[in-house]
C-alpha cells in the first residue's frame, strides 16, 4: 500500500476542508483526483505530504507516519507553478533536494538516475545550464518533475502541474508523464480540473464533493496502456467523459 487514509479530516479553524476521507492507494497505481473548485483536492495532497495535519483520523504512507515518510523522502511534490529557484540553472534546480536536509541527519536517498540523466529523461538534454527564465513554461514544469524524481520517491504528488500550459504542451507532457510512470514504477496522485486529462492519465479517478470535501466516487478507468492521444477520440473514452461530467455536475 503506497498510501492509506483512514477517516481523515482537515479543519482550518471552523471550516472543514475535508471530512472522513478513507482511501487505500496501491503501490504503483496512477490516481487522478477531480472535483469542483474548493472541494479540497489540493488540501488532500497537502494532507498526504505532511503540509497540513489531520484534525482527526490517520494518514499512512508505506506504513509510516507522514512525518517519517517526509524525512525519508518517500514522496515528492510537483506544484502548479514550477517553483524553480530563478538563480539556479536547470541542473542545479534538479540537484536542490540532494543539498537540503543534510544537516538534520536525513539520509538522503539518491536514485539510480543522476540529475543529468533525469533531465535527459524529461527531454531537456542540452539545456542543463539554462536559467529558468530562459525556459518555456512546459520546460520549467519538466525541470520540476525531474527535481521531484531525484530522490526516487515511491509516491509522486502532483497538484495541477500542467494547469497553466497550452493544450499542445499539455498533451505532450501527459504522454511523457505516462512514460515516466511506466519506467519508474512510482505511485502517482494527480490533481486536475480537466476531465479528459483525468481519464487519459488515471487508472482510477477519485471524485471529490465540496462543502465539506468528501469522497463522492472512485471510477476505475478500464482503458488499455500504453495510451496514445488518439485514444481520446474513441467512444469508450467519450463515454467515460460523459459519466464523469454527470458525476461532477451532481456534486
Amino acid at each position, binding site marked *: 500500500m503506497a498510501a492509506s487514509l483512514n477517516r481523515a479530516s482537515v479543519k482550518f479553524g471552523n471550516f472543514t476542508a475535508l471530512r472522513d476521507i478513507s482511501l487505500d492507494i496501491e503501490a504503483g497505481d496512477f490516481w487522478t483526483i477531480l472535483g469542483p473548485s474548493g472541494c479540497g483536492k489540493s488540501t488532500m495532497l497537502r494532507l498526504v505530504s505532511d503540509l497540513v495535519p489531520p484534525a482527526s483520523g490517520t494518514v499512512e504512507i508505506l506504513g509510516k507516519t507522514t512525518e517519517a515518510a517526509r524525512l525519508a523522502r518517500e514522496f515528492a511534490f510537483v506544484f502548479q507553478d514550477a517553483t524553480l*529557484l530563478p538563480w539556479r540553472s536547470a541542473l542545479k534546480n534538479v540537484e536542490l533536494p540532494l543539498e537540503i536536509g543534510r544537516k538534520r541527519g536525513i539520509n538522503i536517498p539518491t536514485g539510480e538516475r543522476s540529475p543529468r540523466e533525469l533531465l535527459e529523461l524529461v527531454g531537456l538534454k542540452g539545456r542543463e545550464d539554462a536559467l529558468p527564465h530562459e525556459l518555456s513554461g512546459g520546460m520549467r514544469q519538466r525541470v520540476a518533475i525531474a527535481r521531484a524524481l531525484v530522490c526516487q520517491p515511491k509516491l509522486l504528488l502532483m497538484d495541477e502541474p500542467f494547469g497553466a500550459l497550452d493544450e499542445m504542451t499539455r498533451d505532450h507532457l501527459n504522454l511523457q508523464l505516462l512514460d515516466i510512470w511506466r519506467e519508474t514504477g512510482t505511485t502517482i496522485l494527480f490533481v486536475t480540473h480537466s476531465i479528459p486529462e483525468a481519464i487519459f492519465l488515471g487508472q482510477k479517478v477519485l471524485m471529490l464533493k465540496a462543502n465539506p470535501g468528501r469522497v463522492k466516487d472512485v471510477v476505475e478507468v478500464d482503458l488499455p496502456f500504453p495510451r496514445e492521444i488518439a485514444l481520446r477520440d474513441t467512444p469508450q473514452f467519450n463515454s467515460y467523459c460523459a459519466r464523469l461530467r454527470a458525476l461532477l455536475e451532481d456534486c
Partner: protein
Amino acid sequence: MSVTETAVENVATERMLSAQSRTRLVNIAIPLGTAVALLLIWQIGVRVFEVPIYIAPAPTDVLHVFQTDFALLLRNFWPTFLESLAGFFIGNMAAILIAVAFVHSRLVERAFFPIAVFINTIPILAIAPILVLIFGPGMTAKVVIAALICFFPTLVNMVRGLQSVSPQTLELARILSASKSEVFWKIRLPSSLPFLFSALKIASTTCVIGAIVGEWIGANVGLGALIIESTFNFRSPLLYATVFVSSGLSVLLFASVTIAEKLIVRW
C-alpha cells in the same frame, strides 16, 4: 544564380547592420547634442548679458578652474569619497542585519520598526548638527550621517526581499525538510538580492549627500567644506566645479553598484 542570391543577402544584412549602428549612434547623439547645446546657450547667455562671474560663471570659467585648481579639488574629493563609502557600507550592513532580525522575529520587528520609521522622519539636516556635537568635527560624524541616510530605504527593501519567497517555494522547502538556516541561505537571501540592489542604487547616491551635509556643519576638508568656502568667498567657478565633482562621485558609486548588480543578479 546562387552567387547573386548570397550577394543580395549580404547587401541586405549589411544594410540591416548599418541601420542598427545608425540607431545606436542616434541614441547617443541626441542626449549628447542636447547637453552641448544647453552648455552653448549658457555660455552665450552669460557673455551676451554680461553676467558677473560671481553670480553665474560661464562653462569655460568652470573648465578653467578644473585646470588650475585640480589638486585642490582632488584633495577635498578623497575625504568625501571615504566618508561616503564607509557610510554606505556601515548603513547598508546595519540595515541588512536588522532586516534579517525582523524577518526572523515578529517581536523584534514590532519593537524596533516604529523607532526606525521615527528616525527616518527626522530631516537629515536637523539631525546632522546633533551628530556633529556627539562625534566631534572629525570624519566619524560624517560617516554616521551618510550611514543614517542609507539605512532606511535598504531596511524596507531588504525586509520585502526576504519575504518575497512564494508560499509554494516554502512548501517545497518543508517537503524537503529544510532547516531554518537552509531556507535562509538557499532561498530567502538569494530571493532578496534584486530588492537589495534597488535599495543599494538609492543608497549609492544618497550617501554622498549625507557626507556633504555632514561637512557643511563642521569640517575644514571635503567637498562640502569646499562648497561652503567657495560660496562665502564668491569663488563661483570653484563652487560649480565642486558641485560637478560631487555629482561625479555619486555617478561613480551608482555605476559601481549597477555593474555589481549585472554580475551578481543574472536572472
